């Protein structure tokens, strides 16, 4: 009986929290006016969320592309179609790996930092102090970070894919010696701008909203203690990663069902 009640409590708590997070999301959108009027606030956060994530995104992209080049070559070679290596590398990256892997990296690099920062600002009463100075912390602190995340994510995903394609080229063409002309021309012929590239950008845009929303909410909602903030940071990474994977499946099934 007690177990049933505990399960019920958890379910109700979860739904309540989801509702609270949705209201928070609506509040962030409604409080975004200040951020856009003072765009420098957003630019500053783009530096912290986007620019400082560049190294991990670029290096990971390069290595993922290089591995794709190696594995792809091994498999394609069996069927004598190694000239399609460029297509394989580009499509895997642009459609899936670019948005998903850079989203996961963004969640653990920038998302966790946002949660920790907001959580600590709350724990050290900085948000309360702002509120006391008649400055709305959601408009001044949360909204600029939200838009910075939403703007940064698609750009990071695009850079990840570009770097990955370069990695595939390095391994496939420079190292193994696949024909350079067919590598690029087949890629150009097979990758469709609307079907593949725009859909990939759309995915990373959606992931950007999800990750930043989760990170900011977890930080804003964190209990104002050391354990509270560390727990919230962990939850950000876990929840964002699951959200990215779940959303990716849904988006893929909507976007590519004709194929």
């Amino acid at each position, binding site marked *: 009986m007690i177990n049933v009640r505990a399960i019920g409590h958890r379910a109700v708590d979860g739904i309540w929290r989801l509702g609270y997070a949705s209201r928070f999301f609506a509040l962030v959108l409604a409080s975004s006016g200040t951020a856009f009027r003072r765009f420098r606030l957003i630019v500053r956060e783009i530096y912290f969320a986007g620019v400082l994530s560049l190294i991990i995104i670029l290096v990971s992209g390069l290595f993922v592309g290089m591995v794709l080049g190696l594995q792809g070559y091994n498999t394609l070679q069996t069927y004598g179609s190694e000239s399609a290596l460029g297509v394989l590398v580009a499509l895997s990256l642009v459609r899936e790996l670019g948005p998903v892997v850079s989203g996961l990296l963004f969640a653990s690099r920038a998302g966790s930092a946002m949660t920790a920062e907001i959580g*600590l*600002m709350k724990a*050290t*009463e*900085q948000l*309360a*102090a*702002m*509120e*006391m*100075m*008649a*400055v709305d912390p959601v408009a*001044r602190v949360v909204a600029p970070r939200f838009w910075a995340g939403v703007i940064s994510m698609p750009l990071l995903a695009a850079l990840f894919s570009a770097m990955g394609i370069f990695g595939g080229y390095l391994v496939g063409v420079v190292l193994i010696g696949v024909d350079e002309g067919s590598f690029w021309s087949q890629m150009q012929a097979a990758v469709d701008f609307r079907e593949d590239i725009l859909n990939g950008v759309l995915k990373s845009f959606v992931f950007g909203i999800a990750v930043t929303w989760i990170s900011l909410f977890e930080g804003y909602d964190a209990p104002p203690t050391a354990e509270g903030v560390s727990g919230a940071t962990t939850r950000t990474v876990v929840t964002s990663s699951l959200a990215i994977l779940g959303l990716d499946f849904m988006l893929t099934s909507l976007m590519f069902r004709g194929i």
Partner: protein
Amino acid sequence: MPGSMASDNLIELSGVDFAYQRRPVLTGIDMAIPRGKVGAIMGVSGSGKTTLLRLIARVVKPTRGEITVDGKLVNELDQQAVYDLRRRMGMLFQFGALFTDLSVYDNVAFQMREHTDLPERMIRDLVLMKLHAVGLRGAHRLMPSELSGGMARRVALARAIALDPMLIMYDEPFTGLDPISLGAIGNLIRRLNDALGATSIVVTHDVEEALELVDYVYYLSDGHIVAQGTPDEMRSSRDPLVRQFVYGEPDGPVPFQYPARDLATDFRLPD
């Protein structure tokens, strides 16, 4: 304060109750702080002192009763009016609550930039004046992480008076300070209040320091005001609760032992 005319009081609370999740925190609070004075709210930890400040700043609403600040009933103000009121209040938080991503200079300039259209040159002069008042003009380039506890508290004080508020509230301003910083903060509270023509409320359990500098004391216990008076009246009070607090006696009306089962049961003594 009893006896003073109503219009002379910057802050008045009458019959204020506050409950948090149906648990009463404050009950039947009557209080008045006259303009230009420094009032203290004292009491042991958890007696509801900080909640009183939050009520005055309308961070929370009372469950019952009326709170008036500068002639305005704060219970009924909408968000915009609350913000307008808060622009005329400064608050010093327990550990300063400086914005850690901004320099000392930008912390003090924060409200001027948010709420005024002053040119940057004028802001610079104002910021340096405020920092000069707390003795830290030379530290304006430092980041909060480079400050000692006492310095951080003084910067926070400069930030709290940035817009020359009519009311300055201090939440445990002496906690965790060395004797020199403690004396400096105590001195500043009094001096700034008198120089700015402001009114101040100090929430503290630091008896000696507070009794030296304030004009009037409200003593809070379990959410009730159980004693009040001038510092001298508090020192000579016969109320056992006040005496225990003022002279720091370990046992008394506030018991040393946390409530427990009786001794014989816990140590399994024979009857």
